[in-house]
């Protein structure tokens, strides 16, 4: 019977019409600013820098520039701190991320050997200032390890354990060889 397929289709839309009133599986809309989806722990938005203790001195970043090199859209800009004699210190003087360029790919997090850069979950970063407002500098990027624990408990715990193990190994090594800083040496090797 011609027309039957159309009637079947009408039945289907009627079912969805009524279903949207009582079936939450059909009516999935979230009223965004009032309600928000819960993000999974793995959710990522833009990078941030982890610090332990002091927001400036406690930054884990040693300004090795690996992330700057690997970043696909080249949105990271790092200038290491210098001491009075012009010697480079293992600390970033400038660490800028242009969020308007960053595509949140997480490559910087993966390549970082010091677990110093991690992915944030803050996604409401819109601003009226198109250029200045979207460049995150060192102070805006720095977030505490507690915050990291708060957004990604499982991953942060694992990272902490790994860092602690690393530190222990280094201390053991240092105790054995009395050599001051093997980690820095390793970094310098990778830099050319």
């Amino acid at each position: 019977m011609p027309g039957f397929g159309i009637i079947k289709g009408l039945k289907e839309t009627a079912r969805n019409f009524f279903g949207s009133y009582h079936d939450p599986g059909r009516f999935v809309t979230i009223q965004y600013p009032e309600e928000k989806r819960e993000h999974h722990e793995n959710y990522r938005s833009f990078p941030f820098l982890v610090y332990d203790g002091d927001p400036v001195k406690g930054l884990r970043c040693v300004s090795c520039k690996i992330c700057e090199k690997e970043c696909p859209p080249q949105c990271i800009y790092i200038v290491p701190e210098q001491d009075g004699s012009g010697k480079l210190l293992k600390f970033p003087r400038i660490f800028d991320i242009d969020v308007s360029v960053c595509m949140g790919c997480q490559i910087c997090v993966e390549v970082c050997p010091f677990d110093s850069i991690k992915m944030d979950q803050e996604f409401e970063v819109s601003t009226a200032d198109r250029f200045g407002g979207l460049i995150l500098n060192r102070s805006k990027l720095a977030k505490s390890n507690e915050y990291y624990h708060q957004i990604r408990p499982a991953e942060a715990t694992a990272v902490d354990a790994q860092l602690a193990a690393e530190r222990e190994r280094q201390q053991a090594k240092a105790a054995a060889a009395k050599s001051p800083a093997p980690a820095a040496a390793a970094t310098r090797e990778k830099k050319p």
Partner: protein
Amino acid sequence: MTPWSTLLALAGDATGSWLAQLKNLATHPWVVNLVAMAVILGANAAFFAVITLLERKGLGRIQNRPGPNRAGPFGILQPAADGIKMITKEDIVPERADQLVHFLAPLVMLAPITLALAVLPYGPQLVAVNLDAGVLFFFAIGTAGELAAFMAGWSSRNKYSLLGAMRAIAQMISFELPLVLSTLVVIMMTGSMSLVEIVAGQGSAAWGLPGWNIFTPWGLAGFLIFLTAAAAESNRSPFDLPEGESEIIGGFMTEYSGFKYAVFFMAEYFGMFAVSGLGITLFLGGWHAPFPFLEWVPGIFWYVAKLVALVFGFIWIRGTLPRLRADQLMNFSWKFLMPLALLNFATAILWHATAGWQFPGAWLCRWLVCFGIVAGAFTGLGRAMLRRRQVGPRIYRYAS
């Protein structure tokens, strides 16, 4: 004469004062006409606002989303927001457009359709103009839409507009025939072209059933043909080709913006109300209540209830069906609806001829015979049309 006017008359006689003059003024034909115009326009405009909201809400629910719900509680202020937006938007006219024709097209579209709303009987006494040839008036008015579509499409100097206008005219002409043929059946069976008389003819109820035309086989078929053709006449889905936004962007309305666009939009909805009203008048018993014991409810209530139901049907169809292609639309009109309407005509004649049958169960027998003819024709024509184009379900094989 209501007690109120009697009172007025008494007061006038007693005092001979300004009250009498006021009464004279209030019953002056000009004043009465103006009031009727204002009421019809105002009521329809308000209904238009309600229906746009209802349509967006209904479509939203069909698509599993809430629809507009931000402007006011449950989004009831959405029509107002839309209206303000439309009015305050910049009115863009293409540089090389034919300015005058471009300006006039929305008016030519809207004005006649508002006229058509005036002849519909909304209730037992609620008819602004009782024309002797009301149905004819309706179709005469409908032709202005074609001209307006052409004016809009041609004057915009846009290829999509032109294509849309061509489609609109071709579609309106093609579907006018089944539309007229399906109403002709009712006119023939009622013996009048006056809408008021057609409604009056559907009042008598048999065995508690309403005497609406839709409960006869020719009425049922006629109603379905009418509905299909009416959807096409008012450019509703699945016949919204003239403005098929996925193909020709906006059709003849592509180059319109702001208030002119709103006028087109309003004309489209008024057209939908008008043809729905005509359908109610012709087939659904007009303002009559479905059962005699409900006659105490005012007729306008039943009219509006039926109108809302029909409009919601249009919305439902719009939310479900994709649109046809232009040539398929023509085929559908000329090769399917036209023969069906003609056959429905013959069925009505048969129904009329067998009205004298007296044996027990005669009514049922007549009904079944007539319905069988129409349903058989529907199936046969539909099958033939699908088979001719080799359209049908397919079975798929899998690679071994």
